[in-house]
């Protein structure tokens, strides 16, 4: 119902705003309302977040718990190659590694997904047929996201048509930082729509916030909520092309966001830190952070992923160390 005194009336009529989630049904009715909602989220105590992440990082995880953590982390890896120089051969060899990360040890779990550029998704899909390993494709003018919406949506359609099971989209950070939150929201909604496959089902949507460009943890919290309200299945820290990428305090804030979002709406959203996680120790710190922040429900590849390439080799070296009792070396894992 339009009322002349309703300040939101015009914007509501001009924009086809999708149906938002129940308790937040009205927050996206206008730019002003959405801004008011996002800025009304509780502020993040940056010093406190850093201290909390640091304390949790000191937990000592040993023996059987460490073995479990390593296997869990391996099963959560999105094995990634996002280089201009990627070739079909490189994608195939990465897919082979994803199936069987440690060919000398059949008890080693396979990874969760292989993450490539959209044009190579088809090759990854063929190479992973029948393995249950997903193909994730980055889209929407990754990594900068600087293209018109039509181009971004075409990019996504193309990746989905090539067989991508998961789409890693970037948000429009320029619009976000300029305060045009509803633009960012609508774009995610539009991308989510084209993730739907003609034959039924839908590609999983991961929304990359690129936290290194969002400057503050308050912005990270706002962007997390924005992405979740828009229907993202995962929120992901970074593209890996910007430094700083995934840091523990950022991940802490995002885990709090998914926890609070589930409490408010009943819908669970996954988290994927990407970029800069290179050692087993880093990965274990993240697992501790999940357990202590969002809870054990997120300790599964369905709800938590590591976007990484070199991390997997370090996990394998540590796994070999636990299995054999002596230190292994880089000659004992593949060079990607």
């Amino acid at each position, binding site marked *: 119902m339009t009322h002349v005194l309703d300040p939101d009336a015009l914007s509501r009529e001009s924009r086809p705003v999708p149906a938002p989630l129940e308790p937040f049904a009205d927050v996206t009715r206008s730019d002003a309302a959405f801004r008011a909602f996002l800025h009304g989220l509780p502020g993040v105590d940056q010093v406190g977040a850093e201290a909390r992440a640091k304390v949790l990082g000191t937990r000592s995880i040993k023996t059987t718990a460490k073995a479990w953590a390593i296997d869990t982390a391996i099963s959560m890896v999105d094995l990634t190659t996002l280089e201009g120089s990627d070739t079909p051969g490189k994608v195939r060899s990465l897919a082979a590694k994803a199936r069987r990360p440690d060919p000398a040890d059949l008890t080693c779990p396979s990874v969760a997904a292989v993450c490539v550029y959209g044009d190579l998704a088809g090759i990854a899909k063929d190479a992973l047929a029948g393995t249950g390993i997903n193909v994730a494709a980055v889209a929407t003018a990754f990594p900068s996201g600087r293209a018109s919406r039509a181009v971004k949506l075409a990019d996504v359609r193309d990746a989905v048509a090539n067989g991508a099971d998961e789409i890693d989209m970037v948000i429009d950070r320029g619009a976000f930082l300029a305060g045009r939150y509803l633009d960012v929201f609508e774009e995610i909604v539009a991308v989510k729509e084209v993730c739907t496959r003609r034959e039924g089902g839908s590609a999983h949507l991961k929304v990359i916030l690129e936290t290194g460009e969002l400057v503050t943890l308050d912005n990270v919290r706002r962007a997390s909520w924005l992405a979740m309200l828009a229907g993202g299945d995962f929120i992901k820290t970074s593209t890996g092309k910007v430094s700083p990428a995934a840091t523990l305090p950022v991940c802490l804030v995002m885990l709090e966001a998914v926890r609070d979002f589930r409490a408010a709406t009943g819908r669970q959203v996954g988290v994927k830190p990407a970029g800069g996680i290179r050692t087993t120790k880093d990965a274990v710190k993240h697992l501790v952070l999940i357990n202590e922040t969002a809870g054990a429900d997120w300790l599964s590849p369905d709800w938590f992923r590591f976007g990484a390439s070199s991390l997997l080799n370090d996990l394998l070296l540590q796994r*070999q160390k636990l299995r054999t*009792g*002596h*230190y*292994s*070396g*880089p*000659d*004992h894992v593949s060079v990607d």
Partner: protein
Amino acid sequence: MSTDRLPVRKTYKLYLGGAFPRSESGRTYEVHDTKGHFLANAARASRKDARDAVVAARGAFWKWSGATAYNRGQVLYRVAEVMEGRAAQFAEEVAAGEGLSATRARAAVDAAIDRWVWYAGWTDKLAAVLGSSNPVAGPYFGFSTPEPTGVVAVLAPQRSSLLGLVSVLGPVLAGGNTAVVVTSKDRPLPAVTLGEVLATSDVPGGVVNLLTGDAAEIGPWLAEHADVDGIDLAGTTAGGLAMELERSAAGTVKRVLRAAAEEPDWTADPGLTRMTPFLETKSVWHPIGV
């Protein structure tokens, strides 16, 4: 100036990857002179320090082994120059640690510096002495050249704290290997000072890593480590621990320089015997007349 000044008690750290970190374990131990007087605290390296040192040594390997032999010689000679400048400090530490007179300690330091220069000179002569142009019965050239083995773990002699150390470290470096050294447990101070010398000369970080502590504790981890290519057991004596380490080293087919029955006299002419175990012979065949 007051005469009852409190001396600053030193707590030394490890030399690892070109930096001076504390032991990951946080442990230290007291170092005493031969009469039992306190000299300083030294870091007591753990297996994880050894692991980190191997990573540092592997990281530095391509740069060091890829440098020209001439350049390696220059860099090692520069180390001798810096050692010469700190000879008095070395002599004091050797005298206290080994219980030598000032004159004999100074002689040991001089011998150590001379030994270092000697190995620096060998870098660009190894290929000429150990390599060959092979006589082959066919239309080929056949060349053999010595190449470094890789990352070498060195258990440094327990008694001769500087001359012994230089006598086992020099040959490893001259051939182009990088080293993870476990120093003498009871007499680590000259090694600590050598670390400071290396850090202020031109040796790239990670080429030499010095771990103060107990070879019996760290040695087995290095002997089993799959990314260590050779091990020098000079810091042990034959039998017991040395036997165990040789057995572990066989698991990854390391080059092993075996321990002597007792610590040798390091003043003797070393020859090439400590260099050749950590050199691999690469042969290249090249067709001619095509």
